[in-house]
């Protein structure tokens, strides 16, 4: 069996990746504390429950990223000759499916609260021997869980762009939207306090719609990635121009009469085939193929294991 060559990030990106790993570890520690703080003041508010579950779910992308970071270094072997890049995609799909399912559950749960006219209550709690309305503590907890992720998300988004990392990008997007969840939950809590029993369930529905939206978008992307859709930029906004760039590199080569390229994404890296029709008497074809393969991989750090295939003509 011929194994795929080992992949290594460029030296300057190794440092960026280490920074991303540190940031994700920090996220997990912070999220765990936010989850604990919210759990302590959960009460019977539906919106609080939704915000709490969203915080728990936002552990998934950092975990997926860290699991992938660990597998990234694993060299291909006899059992997995293509290496472990696809594990990122599997982790990503699992996390997104969980997000979608959970969002759907909260949506149903909150809608039923509304349908059954269930009135949530928030009573008193004791803090340092003083009686405090639990709602104020909830709002404090929501501020703690809602504001820091905005800054975390911004930092992660910068790194995701540099690393061409879609899991990191999905994580950054979820973090950046966290203030909206916390804000909606606060409105729900304040609504209960103001005697508007429906405000809480409405806030929870808004939050769950956001989770469903996140989940749907991510499942879509994860499925498309696993189906080898054409490579896109880290934010899925537009196709990567690399296919054209590789073709543009190949066509002017003296030994090449025609060339077509097909690429797919596996985690960080792009792999695929470059189909080349040689000119009449190209010379030492095996050496030309070897040199061209190396030249393609030098075009961009993301290009990895692009096979140059020599054909008599291009139409199939």
């Amino acid at each position: 069996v011929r194994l795929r060559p080992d992949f290594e990030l460029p030296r300057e990106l190794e440092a960026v990746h280490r920074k991303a790993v540190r940031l994700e570890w920090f996220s997990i520690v912070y999220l765990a504390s936010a989850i604990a703080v919210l759990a302590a003041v959960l009460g019977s508010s539906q919106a609080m429950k939704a915000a709490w579950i969203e915080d728990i779910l936002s552990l998934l992308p950092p975990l997926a990223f860290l699991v992938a970071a660990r597998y990234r270094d694993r060299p291909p072997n006899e059992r997995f000759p293509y290496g472990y890049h696809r594990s990122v995609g599997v982790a990503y799909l699992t996390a997104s499916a969980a997000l979608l399912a959970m969002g759907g559950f909260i949506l149903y749960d909150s809608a039923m609260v509304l349908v059954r006219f269930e009135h949530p209550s928030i009573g008193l709690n004791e803090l340092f021997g003083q009686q405090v309305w639990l709602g104020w503590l909830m709002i404090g907890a929501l501020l703690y869980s809602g504001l820091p992720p905005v800054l975390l998300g911004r930092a992660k988004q910068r790194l995701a762009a540099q690393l061409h990392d879609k899991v990191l990008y999905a994580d950054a997007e979820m973090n950046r939207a966290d203030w909206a969840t916390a804000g909606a939950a606060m409105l729900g809590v304040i609504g209960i306090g103001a005697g508007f029993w429906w405000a809480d369930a409405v806030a929870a529905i808004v939050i769950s719609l956001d989770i469903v939206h996140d989940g749907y978008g991510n499942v879509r992307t994860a499925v498309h990635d696993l189906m080898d859709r054409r490579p896109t930029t880290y934010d899925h906004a537009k196709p990567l121009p690399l296919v054209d760039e590789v073709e543009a590199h190949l066509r002017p080569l003296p030994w090449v009469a025609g060339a077509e390229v097909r690429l797919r994404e596996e985690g960080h890296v792009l792999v695929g085939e470059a189909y080349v029709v040689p000119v009449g008497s190209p010379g030492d074809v095996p050496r030309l193929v070897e040199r061209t393969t190396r030249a393609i991989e030098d075009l961009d750090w993301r290009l990895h294991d692009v096979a140059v295939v020599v054909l008599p003509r291009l139409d199939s």
Partner: protein
Amino acid sequence: VRAASVLAALVVLTLPLPACQWPRDAEGTLDRVTGGTLRVGLVEAEPWVVLDDDEPGGVEVRLVEELAGRLDTQVEWVPGSESALMEALHVRAVDLVVGGLDSSAPWQDQAALSRHYLTTTTVLAVPAGDGGTTVDDLQGRQVAVEGGTADAERVRTFDVVPVPVADVADADGPVVVDVWRLDDLGLRGLDATVSTSEHVVAVPLGENAWQTTVERFLLTRSGDELGRLLDEEQP
């Protein structure tokens, strides 16, 4: 910038609210009860609610009477089963249910349980003169415990032999008893908690002003006051 402005709007919107009644009721129970009538569901549960005589008695009945006095409210007692009263609370046919309710009661969907105002524990105890006896000494020995209670089975975790009795006050030797009864019965509690109960009352869901009023009243009762009320209920 957008996040900051939304949060600022939130703060500005909520600032004037605490000035008036906060939190507020969804259906205005506190306003209706104050100076009006308070409908209280009673579940018989000694020593919290006692229904032997014409007039109800018990620790929680006394507490409700004191609260009603402060709110200048006429109390209407509604005795019933716990299930029936919780359903009545759900549809707001009563305003409050008392009767030895515990914070672990499974009524979350029908009612709002208050914050617990008192925690009671039952312990293994020996006669006060029985100096030096420890939990280990009781292993394999008979211990009197009120029959038909969960404690009668739970106490087996201390490797003792439970003997069900009608009232542990009549028993000699080791017993399982509420901590608040120790002094009166001349008993010494051992370092062996059999069960713990967090006492709560139930109010209708969504009545935040009413709930916090009841909770504030209960939470500001001193330990002495509750102890005195319990002592009055000693069999």
